[in-house]
């Protein structure tokens, strides 16, 4: 993983050394070889050149898990552009807000995102649709060299704990993370087949699933819209060996209709983006014979911090730090805490981002001069070096000096039979400093008595962790990854 040859490189060149006939992508049963992919990328590259897209042009890529996403991404990179992938399923106003933050020079729509062409006016930017008929008859346009430190991706974060920010990731950041996956002894092997079911607009699905697999030269089967039954069918049909998912996907797979040997070909199953509930892990293991290993990462770290590769899986842990990633757990003064104690997870690696776009203050708050990134996540190491995520640092509620981690309280409340969802936040209180307040979404929209919830909480939680107030809401703010957006309920 030597990154010294930054005189001229381009991440997009990872396609170049692959066998032309080897399968790169499969979508709807149709295979696209590396050779075909390269020609489509070259054709679009020429078209983008005509459109004036060049080094540091900003390109928003609105496509689903489609071939067009991959073609658009590589063609834009070939031209030296900075790409911002966006979910095509976002409603127009949301997409508008995102595009306002990104201010792209060009919007590339493709596959499930081709509809953006009809809304070009609303978005105030020129739109180009990537389709199957890219014109390849013009003169060949060369790939533009970049420095490794040049920006490749400008990723809009989901804004779980703060306002959305744009994370700037370089060609080197992404390359290092991909190589970490590909070169690991248990990473990607020549005969692997990868399922691309996670959204490609998310760093995990993009860099660790799609791009790492393409770098390794193995096929990626794209699943455009997650459906658990279809997912099981794709696994069996394409003999998928590597499956990465987020907790909501794994939960649905655990209960999916389908044969229990549907995952017989899976040799590596991973979960990221949020905590995988132990019962989901257990059901997947018992039913399909597959152990799901959790990993941990953030957009700011090009997705990689820790994983469960190459070691025994501990179901509640997010695995061990990836080789080359320094991970320490520290107190507020930056002093490492004892093993077994909770502190903030601080990370340094070649995959750590360069900062937030046009937000120096936000960058300075989390990134030290020598490259340490304060994740804002609280964690704990065990004696064997496995990492466990506790909660977001900002979400802690302090009751009489004791730390209450909302996630723990929420995980108890949702086991109450009448509770569909729960969000726990802190509020100021006279004698205890803060107090725990729970927002409850009742299953089936019915009613449940405060007293029933209070008694349930007392049976399962220490007294200081029990909510002192229950508020009933019709809907809880939740990100697609399954993360609760608590700040929306904090007052």
């Amino acid at each position: 993983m030597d990154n010294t040859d930054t005189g001229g490189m381009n991440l997009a060149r990872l396609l170049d050394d692959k066998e032309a006939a080897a399968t790169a992508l499969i979508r709807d049963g149709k295979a696209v070889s590396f050779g075909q992919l390269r020609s489509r990328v070259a054709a679009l590259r020429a078209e983008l050149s005509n459109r004036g897209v060049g080094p540091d042009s900003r390109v928003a890529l609105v496509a689903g898990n489609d071939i067009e996403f991959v073609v658009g991404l590589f063609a834009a990179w070939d031209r030296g552009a900075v790409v911002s992938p966006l979910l095509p399923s976002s409603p127009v106003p949301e997409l508008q807000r995102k595009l306002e933050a990104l201010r792209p020079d060009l919007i590339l729509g493709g596959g499930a995102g081709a509809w953006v062409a009809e809304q070009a006016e609303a978005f105030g930017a020129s739109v180009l649709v990537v389709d199957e008929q890219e014109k390849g008859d013009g003169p060949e346009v060369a790939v533009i060299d970049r420095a490794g430190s040049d920006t490749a991706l400008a990723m809009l974060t989901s804004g779980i704990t703060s306002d959305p920010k744009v994370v700037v990731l370089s060609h080197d950041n992404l390359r290092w993370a991909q190589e970490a996956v590909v070169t690991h002894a248990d990473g990607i092997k020549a005969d692997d087949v990868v399922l691309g079911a996670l959204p490609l607009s998310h760093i995990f699905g993009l860099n660790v699933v799609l791009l790492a697999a393409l770098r390794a030269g193995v096929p990626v089967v794209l699943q455009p819209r997650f459906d658990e039954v279809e997912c099981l069918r794709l696994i069996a049909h394409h003999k998928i060996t590597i499956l990465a998912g987020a907790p909501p996907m794994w939960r649905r797979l655990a209960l999916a209709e389908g044969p229990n040997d549907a995952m017989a070909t899976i040799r590596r199953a991973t979960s990221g983006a949020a905590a995988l509930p132990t019962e989901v892990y257990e059901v997947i293991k018992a039913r399909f014979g597959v152990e799901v290993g959790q990993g941990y990462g953030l957009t700011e770290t090009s997705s990689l911090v820790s994983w469960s590769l190459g070691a025994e899986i501990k179901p509640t842990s997010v695995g061990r730090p990836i080789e080359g990633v320094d991970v320490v757990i520290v107190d507020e003064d930056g002093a490492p805490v004892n093993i077994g104690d909770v502190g903030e997870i601080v990370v340094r690696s070649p995959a750590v981002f360069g900062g937030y776009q046009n937000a120096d203050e936000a960058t300075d708050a989390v990134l030290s001069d020598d490259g340490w990134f304060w994740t804002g996540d609280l964690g704990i190491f065990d004696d064997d070096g496995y990492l466990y995520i506790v909660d977001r640092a900002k979400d802690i509620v302090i009751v009489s000096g004791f730390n209450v981690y909302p996630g723990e309280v929420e995980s108890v409340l949702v086991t109450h039979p009448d509770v569909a969802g729960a969000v726990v936040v802190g509020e100021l209180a006279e004698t205890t400093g803060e107090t725990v307040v729970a927002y409850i979404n009742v299953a089936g929209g019915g009613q449940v008595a405060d007293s029933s919830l209070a008694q349930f909480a007392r049976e399962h939680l220490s007294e200081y962790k029990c909510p002192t107030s229950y508020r009933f809401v019709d809907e809880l703010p939740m990100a697609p990854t399954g993360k609760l957006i608590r700040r929306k309920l904090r007052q």
Partner: protein
Amino acid sequence: MTSDFRFESDAELPGSDLLGRLAYTVARPVIARLWDVKIEGIEHVPRRGPAIVTPNHLSFCDSIFVPYALPRRTWAIGKGEYLDSWKTRYIFPALGMIPVDRSGGDAAARALETAAEVLKRDHLFMIYPEGTRSRSTNLHKGRTGAARLAERCNAPILPVGHVGTLDVQPPDTFKMKVNLPVTVRIGEPMWIDDFGEPGDPRRMRRMTDALMFRIGQLSEQTYVDTYAGSSDTPLQKPPTLTRPTPPPARKKAKSPVLSAAGEPR
């Protein structure tokens, strides 16, 4: 004084000889005579089987009053150095102290082994979760040793909070003032299984925090989320509870303070 005290002896453990029995037989009526010891929650001590007794720690004499309050004989770990002094060489082991050499890197592991042995033999084992005496009089953050023992030996933890020992024997004094009241409160047993999945370090921390909360209720102390130790200022009045102020916003993120080897401690 607890009338139905049971002196458990165990040939494999110190203090089971005649001297041990004698020490207890003599000490108990003397304590009952010299201090007004009130004991609450004695029904929470299991009649048989192992349990981990976890009191708050304010004074040297806690090690006298807490074992006194229990209806069964208890063991604890003490500094190996006590065996070097003629004053303590015989009496401390007789009272159930198991000396552990605190020098060397694996001292904690050795202490844990010793404690596990006591529990495996179905006895009571006493450990101060704060690790050392609180000089601030606040209740400090708990160390996870008791929870680790609970997991390893499948033993309950008995939270204990006491009030009054600091007046009997203030820090750095040898003499104990008599005729003072001491209250020892024993809480309901706590089981590690109620705190999460086996092997998960968050479970140890969760149980330890819950334990400290219970001890704080029993001892009427204010909890502070820092370890008791040298930075713990002597004898402050407990602060009144106010809204916890968040740390000042970081102006510029710092690098972690790493040791020379670059390793967390």
